[in-house]
């Protein structure tokens, strides 16, 4: 399957500088036709810049890119696409409201004398989708109405529409649930069998083993290892290469939960109109409860309803024995609840504002006298928190947008630490967070629990739920189908429960 072939793309000594920083300082690697080449590295290692350089969005300052043996310089992404190199970014670049076929040919519409050739576009889209193994996607469908997984397939069709030979995918699995990842892998295998090369970027090592052929590791803008066999190389070795230090145990040690600890969060018979019903959930002080389930199973909706961000149709939520008003975030926050939402950037952060403002936004009244804010106190308290959480780079006046995913997540956590909340709800706390920062966040969550906070964690990553939680609840199609201690259940059992009765 991975017969050695001539290098399709080879990169030598690539350097890219931005004002004040060198993002890439010597990247070497090569990609063969028909292979899945994985790029691994922490946030800030230069992966995104590399993709942009390869796909023509940035010009390199030094080094050479050879495409099929010839030195090339793509002036822009369209030029790269015409040569057969296409990138699919994390934030899918599709236009909702346009049809699948329109999106596939966006920017290089098929036309005769200015009139679009819609039938031809539909026909070719059909052929591309067939080739990707998804004939069920209808070319006339509005892209905005497709599932994320299907949107990704459309993105891939778009990338292939100009006879793509190399597909660069930036964390394609981050927005997919396990079922959909399987679909994605099917498509990737289909493509590589046809000789297309794929550069695959992911934080999830398990995925890299499953789909990857070879691995290149980046650190601080440099290649630290390249061409490693994806299936054989040891996890510890990869982590050591990425972080520059050995990392033996990702999950922190958990203490047994005090069986008579007070029940802080009590949810009874919670239901909304149609996404879920009859949800019972009790979390004691110091306990971490994990919610496992597929995307769309209702787990995020349950969390948001407990928090009051969605209005419950039925049921009660109590914190420390006091019942909360339905559908009121304000009441939940006042009762001591905090939520780290699933979409950190769009739901959690004020991206263009300073770190300290993001931290104090939920506790403004405690910094105010007669409505006037004490700016200095805000900065001081935030500084102490960001130091304790090791948020980097240091400085509470920095704009949050410039921080990496892991550090942004720490900022959201700091917001609730500042309030000293009683109940912390975490939705996908480590999405888009690199391996090093991930274990720090796990430790932080554990530390909070040890201080008596009741924690609920929702995650698509079963390993994460099992490693972190004391008790695991499995949600399927809006019902809780399992509730038990984490050490009495294993990954395959959880997956069984999650998938049961679910069309694979």
């Amino acid at each position, binding site marked *: 399957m991975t017969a050695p072939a001539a290098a399709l793309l080879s990169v030598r000594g690539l350097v890219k500088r931005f004002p004040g920083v060198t993002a890439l300082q010597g990247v070497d690697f090569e990609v063969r036709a028909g292979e899945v080449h994985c790029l691994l590295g922490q946030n*800030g290692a230069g992966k995104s810049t590399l993709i942009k350089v390869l796909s023509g969005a940035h010009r390199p300052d030094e080094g050479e890119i050879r495409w099929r043996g010839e030195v090339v310089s793509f002036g822009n992404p369209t030029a790269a696409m015409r040569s057969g190199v296409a990138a699919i970014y994390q934030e899918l670049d599709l236009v909702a409201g346009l049809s699948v076929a329109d999106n596939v040919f966006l920017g290089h519409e098929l036309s005769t004398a200015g009139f679009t050739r819609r039938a031809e576009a539909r026909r070719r889209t059909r052929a591309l989708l067939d080739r990707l193994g998804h004939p069920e996607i209808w070319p006339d469908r509005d892209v905005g109405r497709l599932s994320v997984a299907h949107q990704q397939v459309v993105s891939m069709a778009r990338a292939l529409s100009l006879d793509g030979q190399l597909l660069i995918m930036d964390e394609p699995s981050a927005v997919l649930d396990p079922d959909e990842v399987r679909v994605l892998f099917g498509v990737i295998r289909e493509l590589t069998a046809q000789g297309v090369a794929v550069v695959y970027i992911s934080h999830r090592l398990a995925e890299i083993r499953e789909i990857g052929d070879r691995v290149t590791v980046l650190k601080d803008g440099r290649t630290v290892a390249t061409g490693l066999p994806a299936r054989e190389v040891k996890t510890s070795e990869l982590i050591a290469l990425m972080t520059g230090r050995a990392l033996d145990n990702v999950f922190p040690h958990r203490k047994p939960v005090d069986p008579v600890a007070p029940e802080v969060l009590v949810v009874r018979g919670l239901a909304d109109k149609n996404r879920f019903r009859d949800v019972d959930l009790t979390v004691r002080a110091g306990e971490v409860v994990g919610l496992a389930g597929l995307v769309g199973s209702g787990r995020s909706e349950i969390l948001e309803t407990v928090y009051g961000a969605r209005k419950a149709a039925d049921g009660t939520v109590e914190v420390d024995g006091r019942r909360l008003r339905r559908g009121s*975030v304000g009441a939940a926050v006042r009762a001591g609840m905090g939520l780290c939402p699933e979409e950190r950037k769009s739901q959690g952060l004020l991206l263009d504002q300073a770190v300290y*403002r993001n931290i104090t936004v939920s506790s403004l009244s405690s910094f105010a006298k007669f409505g006037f804010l004490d700016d200095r106190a805000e900065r001081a308290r935030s500084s102490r928190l960001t130091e304790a959480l090791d948020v980097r780079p240091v*400085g509470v006046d*920095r704009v949050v947008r410039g921080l990496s995913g892991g550090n942004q997540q720490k900022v959201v956590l700091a917001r609730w630490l500042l309030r000293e909340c009683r109940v912390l709800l975490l939705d996908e706390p480590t999405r888009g967070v690199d391996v090093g920062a991930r274990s720090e966040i796990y430790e932080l969550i554990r530390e909070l629990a040890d201080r008596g906070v009741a924690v609920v964690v929702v995650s698509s990553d079963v390993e994460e739920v099992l490693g972190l939680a004391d008790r695991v609840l499995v949600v399927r199609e809006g019902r809780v189908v399992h509730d038990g201690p984490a050490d009495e259940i294993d990954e395959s059992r959880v997956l069984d429960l999650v998938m049961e009765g679910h069309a694979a």
Partner: protein
Amino acid sequence: MSEDTAAVAARERTPVVKDNGRGISALLASPAGRNTGLVVALVLLCLGGVVTAGDRFADVDNLLTILRLAAVIGVVSVGMTFVITGGGIDLSVGAIVALSSVWATTLATQGIANDTHWIVIVFTALVVGGACGLVNGTLIAYGRVVAFIATLASLAAARGLAEIISNRKTQIVNVPGFAAFFDASVLGVPVLVVIFAVVAAAGWVLLNRTTFGRRTFAVGGNPEAARLAGIDVRRHTVWLYTLLGLCCGLAAVMLIARTTTGSATHGGLYELDAIAAVVIGGTLLSGGRGTIAGTVFGVLIFTTLSNVFTLNNLSISAQAVAKGAIIVVAVLLQQRLARRSGA
């Protein structure tokens, strides 16, 4: 060691809100620098005035006239800065000014004012303006009507109501105490200008030093994140429009004082002038970033421009063209600076 270089590299990659300047571009991109650009523009305009109109421009009375004209639209623009920073827009401000001016100067209102105290006129205008803002805010926040549409509807309705009440007649004000108060000067500065200064200063404090202001930035920057952080976004939105409504009521009072009339034609195109002043001042039209000082400069630039054109006997149409050009240039410049200071 490599750990350190990574930290350093990351630090350099991240933009900082406060940056004590590296070169002119960094200075221009800083908050103070953005105002420097506006100051330079204003100074150039004044120089133009002196060169083309000489003493007729550089005359204390003329400068006070500029300020008096700037005061009314300035008060509206300060309110508009809040709404735009909070992620909204209000097209109905001119119509609210007209309605408030008419309602506050009906024979009935003037009668009560003459019987009791002239403050009744002020009070009426503020209540009418505030109520209009409350309606706008409620429609937008709780009725979930898009701000553009909701306030477009208010624009039509409020001006129509003003015409009905005034029967399309200009209502002359004849309340002695009222005129005496607003025509006066404090240490040579007309009361209208003092009011503008007080409103601008209060607006600055409210936006930059209070929880209300901070919440405004949060709501405008990312309403969903603000909601999940526990801020009552809808209630805050209502407050923002109500505040702007009150500013419109106050502007109506000032306009009544300046023209000694209430009329359904007052405040024509104020929405465009106010939005333009706010935007060239540096407030982001998409919300989350706003500056009162910038808005004040924006207002002064436009009013001075009108004055210079008028002194040179240039037509209103020529003024409009120049205004349009200024808006485009200002926005282009801002985008440039934003790109340089941002990612």
